């Protein structure tokens, strides 16, 4: 009797585990930091959790496949499936995770039509946001709210994490307002994300997934700069793991 299906999304920053039943109801979801030993962490997260089949996604999926004899799916298809579960009409998805970001366009039937991913560095990803928040003395949860308080636009031109850090340092030295610097950093990430979305999809609402979608300033700026509707699932960081679990069930 197959009735519990697991999806595990092993990302660079965090691991998410989701269990669904045969109707797609979420029975369990949990998140943990990836740490330095992703397989040990993944094993710990699944201990004592019953499931009939598991599908792995995220950058650690191939390691997991070898270590635990699981099936795998790419983050692109997993996020697309997870996003469609919440928003069955979705035709475009933006996912900003810990170490990469991607834009995915879908056909009406949910199949992937085209996708773009960012390059080999942390620019424009969750990791970039974490480092910048820390430089400005914010907890990552408060970073977006602080940015929303800004009253003017501050241009931050560097996308490279290292260069942006020194740019932020000189802005602080110039006496610029922390909120405004924060907004400038949010804007620099959004500019890149908007360009990526526009390369794959030109109209209609965007489903925004990944941990960065929890950031209220990101959501607001994305809507403003794209001029398109933004749909965010309740727990956007679980979209990949949920998609993998749904695919383990036999969807897509």
């Amino acid at each position, binding site marked *: 009797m197959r009735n519990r299906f697991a999806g595990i999304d092993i990302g660079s920053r965090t691991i998410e585990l989701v269990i669904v039943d045969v109707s797609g109801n979420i029975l369990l979801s949990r998140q943990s930091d990836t740490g330095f030993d992703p397989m040990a962490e993944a094993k710990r997260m699944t201990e004592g959790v019953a499931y009939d089949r598991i599908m792995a996604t995220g950058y650690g999926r191939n390691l997991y496949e070898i270590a635990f004899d699981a099936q795998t799916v790419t*983050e692109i298809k997993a996020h697309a499936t997870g996003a469609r579960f919440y928003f069955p009409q979705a035709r475009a998805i933006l996912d900003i995770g810990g170490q990469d970001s991607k834009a995915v366009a879908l056909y009406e039937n949910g199949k*992937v039509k085209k996708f773009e991913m960012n390059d080999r560095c942390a620019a424009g990803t969750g990791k970039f946001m974490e480092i910048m928040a820390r430089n400005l003395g914010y907890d990552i949860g408060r970073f977006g709210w602080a940015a929303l308080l800004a009253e003017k636009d501050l241009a931050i031109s560097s996308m490279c994490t290292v260069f942006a850090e020194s740019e932020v340092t000189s802005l602080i030295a110039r006496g610029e307002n922390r909120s405004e610097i924060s907004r400038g950093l949010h804007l620099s990430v959004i500019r890149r994300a908007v360009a990526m979305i526009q390369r794959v999809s030109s109209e209609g609402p965007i489903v925004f997934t990944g941990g960065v979608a929890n950031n209220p300033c990101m959501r607001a700026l994305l809507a403003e700069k794209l001029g398109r509707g933004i749909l965010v699932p309740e727990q956007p960081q679980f979209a990949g793991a949920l998609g993998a679990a749904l695919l383990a069930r036999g969807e897509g």
Partner: protein
Amino acid sequence: MSEDYRSMWAELGMDLAGHDALLGVLGKAYQDIYLFQKERPEGMAYFDFVMSEVHGLRIKELLDEKAAGRKIIGSYCVFVPEEIVLAANATLIGLCSGADFATEEVEKLLPRNTCALIKSAFGFKIGKVCPYLESADMIVGENTCDGKKKAYESLGDLVDNLYVMDLPQVKSINGRQLLKAEYLRFKTAVEDLTGVAITADSLRQAIRTVNAKRAAIHRLCALRKASPTPISGLDALLTNQVSFYDNPARFTASVNTICDELEQGIADNIGVFPAGTPRILIAGCPQAVPNWKLPMIVESAGAVIVGEESCVGERGTRNLTVESGQTIDEMLEAIVERYFQVDCAIFTPNQERLIHIEEMVAAYKADGVIHYGLQFCQPYLMESIPVEKALEEMNIPCLRIETDYSMEDMGQLKTRVEAFVEQITS
């Protein structure tokens, strides 16, 4: 490779320690990527042997030829006409390489943002690890992209036998005249090097030899149209890569032998991948030995490569030279005619290339195209955008990859390629 070759490499002035390191990496990569494949055609044993002796027995053969008075000419481009070289009783060898070597030393001579293919050529020279380069009596550079043509100015300081061929950039009457003038100048240079005057008979025979080699590759390509595919993309790429090193007549016979075997396999409905495996066409920059990174990723992601639109592929081998010429001039005209059709991205405009990609997608029943661009290769990266757009307008999925010879981006590339395979899997 046996110890016997060490004195040969030392006499060529090579750096034995660096060369050992290179061969170690090459051997390991070949083991992991090639010998790991299942259900390979038996005829690939010949190519495995050639690869195992690529710096050994083949170099010994070339040095024996040299001892008998034959000259060796090395080239970095499919525009250098092998017909002229053979007709003057010389041997043409491809010098392009597909591995990083001595990168820090290279970056003292070339900017960091130079493509991996050019850097590799310099690295193999500076590191003294390429016996082909060290055996060559003449090294032919050619004015293709800006990167190569400026790099040859610096390469000229490292070698004393560099000859630079100019090439047209427009398919015009003037462009064709330039190519003809350059081939004539090259003919004279080769004759001066060898002391052998090209005759109508020697040129006719050379055209036949090179045509036979290309015809054998065409035959192999045609067999890749079958489903299930009778040969992996990795193995087909290897045969093409070997064509740049091997003795032409022996190469032709070996390719024809493997084709006989594959034809029988197709008749028996035997393939190296199951029928229904997603079929991918690779288009873009050349992949020189041992640059097997992308095909390895593609074929371990559950897809099969059915064709290469590349210099190490159909761009390099498309079209035969017309054999009906009687005089040297008629035959040279036919050679110019054949090479002038090569649709390299240095030409502007270069609409023929897009047409060829579309033709190849149809002929090989490809489900999608991966456009392979080397980082900093301006001509192909520029073309990749209109190529992708045109293909998508025809509902042919296209994935643009931009990479180099390093292994740092393996994870990202795997994710992209696997997602593309998911995308095109019906």
